[in-house]
């Protein structure tokens, strides 16, 4: 018998105290506020399709050890920072000391800087809508603070590799905070990977604050294995004329949840959010996005595509909120979904709250299957059925994958997706 579903106190106990005082203090406050936090159930609207995939146990609450100094030998076309179980591994990281660009782990911050950061953490997220991110704030052991000065341009993409080592049961809490000053620019690639097969949970929070005219591109790849439950949240606040672009590529797992919240707070701000999600077997993936047009004259463009095979389950919930004074808002949201088998399920829900009267807001959602005529055309040329299915399925998402601005990532993703579908169609 389950007791009333509130969060176990085991989840509120951080392990280390390596953070500077102000952050330790913040963490403690967040933890206290979480006591008796109700856990999402299927009656909780924003978790209604996913609560059944969420498996919390006290064993999972244990902080995973941040062991090992050995580097992950990746050759990446850019700078990199490696995190293992939420804690930075300096020996495996390689990033420059550039003028106007600060890349610093939380545990190295001065008390003064930490105090300033503590004032700002969590400000990009609506904690009521993103409940599980609150747990990260009570448990993060380390984090990465990226600060770009006015007009600073990071000349190469910054890769952040978040590796969770599932050699014992437990959880990790990666945390990133990006502060982009006026007219600064950068591209950030987050890769979530895993090794090992013990059940673990990753609860990650990434925040971006863009000042006027700043341009930031984020790429987020969820690539963890079958024993990892992954809950992520990305919060973004944009000032006037800033531009935020986000590309997420997600491979399914036992639980995959990402909340993406963007607030367009200054006139002329723009955001472009792309998402590609693929699930097979009994996998799950839930994307909840929320775009707030707070200021007038802002543009948002959102395109998400889900492909669900076998008995897998994908969810997309896209919320757009246009505030009363946000006249001349231009919002476009499009979610296309492909079901590859009768046992797969895709739930899609657009949520539009429009309170201004001079706006353009278009949304579309479709769910379909592979076109039989297209398939016949391909096999009539002697193409193997499995390969034909893979080609058509890739076609469904190619357009989005091609927009990923980092070539190496794009190519790696294409290969990985190809393998994924080749495998899916093996028994077809």
């Amino acid at each position, binding site marked *: 018998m389950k007791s009333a579903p509130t969060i176990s106190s085991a989840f509120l106990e951080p392990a280390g105290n390596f953070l500077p005082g102000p952050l330790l203090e913040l963490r403690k406050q967040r933890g206290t506020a979480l006591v008796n936090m109700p856990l999402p159930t299927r009656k909780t609207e924003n978790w209604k399709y996913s609560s059944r995939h969420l498996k919390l146990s006290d064993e999972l609450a244990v902080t995973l050890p941040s062991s090992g100094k050995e580097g992950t030998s990746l050759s990446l076309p850019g700078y990199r920072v490696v995190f293992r179980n939420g804690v930075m591994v300096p020996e495996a990281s390689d990033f420059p000391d550039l003028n106007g660009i600060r890349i610093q782990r939380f545990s190295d911050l001065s008390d003064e800087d930490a105090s300033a950061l503590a004032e700002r953490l969590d400000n990009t997220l609506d904690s009521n809508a993103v409940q599980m991110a609150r747990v990260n704030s009570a448990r993060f052991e380390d984090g990465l603070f990226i600060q770009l000065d006015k007009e600073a341009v990071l000349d190469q993409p910054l890769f952040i590799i978040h590796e969770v080592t599932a050699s014992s049961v437990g959880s990790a809490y990666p945390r990133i905070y990006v502060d982009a000053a006026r007219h600064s620019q950068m591209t950030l690639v987050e890769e979530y990977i895993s090794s090992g097969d013990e059940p673990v949970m990753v609860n990650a929070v990434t925040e971006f604050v863009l000042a006027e005219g700043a341009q930031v591109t984020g790429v987020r790849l969820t690539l963890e294995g079958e024993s990892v439950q992954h809950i992520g949240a990305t919060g973004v606040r944009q000032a006037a004329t800033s531009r935020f672009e986000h590309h997420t590529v997600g491979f399914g797992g036992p639980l995959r949840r990402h909340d993406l919240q963007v607030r367009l707070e200054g006139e002329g701000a723009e955001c472009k959010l792309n998402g590609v999600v693929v699930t097979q077997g009994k996998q799950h993936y839930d994307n909840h996005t929320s775009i707030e047009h707070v200021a007038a004259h802002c543009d948002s463009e959102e395109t998400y595509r889900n492909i669900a095979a076998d008995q897998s389950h994908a969810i997309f919930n896209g919320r757009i909120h246009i505030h009363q004074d946000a006249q001349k808002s231009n919002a476009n949201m499009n979610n296309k979904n492909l079901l590859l088998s009768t046992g797969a399920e895709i739930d899609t829900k657009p949520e539009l709250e429009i309170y201004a009267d001079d706006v353009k807001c278009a949304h579309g959602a479709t769910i379909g299957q592979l076109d039989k005529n*297209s398939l016949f055309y391909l096999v*009539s*040329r*002697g193409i193997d059925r499995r*390969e034909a299915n893979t*080609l058509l399925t890739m076609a469904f998402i190619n357009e989005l994958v091609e927009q990923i601005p980092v070539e190496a990532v794009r190519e790696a993703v294409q290969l990985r997706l190809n393998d994924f579908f080749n495998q899916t169609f093996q028994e077809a």
Partner: protein
Amino acid sequence: MLSIKNLHASVGGEEILKGINLEIKAGEVHAIMGPNGSGKSTLSQVLAGSETFQVTEGEVTLNGENLLELETEERAREGVFLAFQYPVEIPGVSNLQFLRTAVNAMRKHRGESEMNAAEFMKHAKEVSKQVDLDPAFLKRGVNEGFSGGEKKRNEILQALLLQPKLAILDETDSGLDIDALHVVSDGVNALRAEDRAILMVTHYQRLLNHIVPDYVHVLAGGKIVKSGGRELAHELEERGYGWLGVKDEEATASSTAS
């Protein structure tokens, strides 16, 4: 090469082909004409292996081998090629990728080595010239944004690349202007070979002025009601289908105006 005996096929319970008999030898060019609704396209699709139609009776062999038992992709590899009447558009799959995958599947089946990207690109560009297609189309999606004429030329391009044993052209001339008609006809004539058979399904006679057939058959009401040499096509052009005792749903006596 191709032997069709008493072929019956239906769709949704309705019988379209009511006992087709046809023999085509290697090196021959046959034309099948007939009024709309006679079953011409159905015959093409059934030969290619479309799952839309159910074969209820009869047999089809290709070089002695039972064709009906093979899946569409197997038939293609055995050398059956269908130039579609309405080629489908597939945005997201580039023409290059599609063509190369098809050609390599064929080569693999024949025990030949596969072509790499560079080799194939060169080969495809050359053959594109033969059908007057700007090689830039290779980067676009399959048939994406193509005019009717371009789509038909792309079908012929595929035939030229795949070098089939049996090329079935389903109303390849429909919707073509004079220039495109010439290009397509030249392409088809370039396919003529001693070890190849060509079956053209056509509604209008004019294509047969450019691709002169050895034999002409009239398909009406699901059966072949008359067969003859190339002169039969002229006779049909002048007299229509009525003299055969065949009901036509649309005036076909006049040759196409365009």
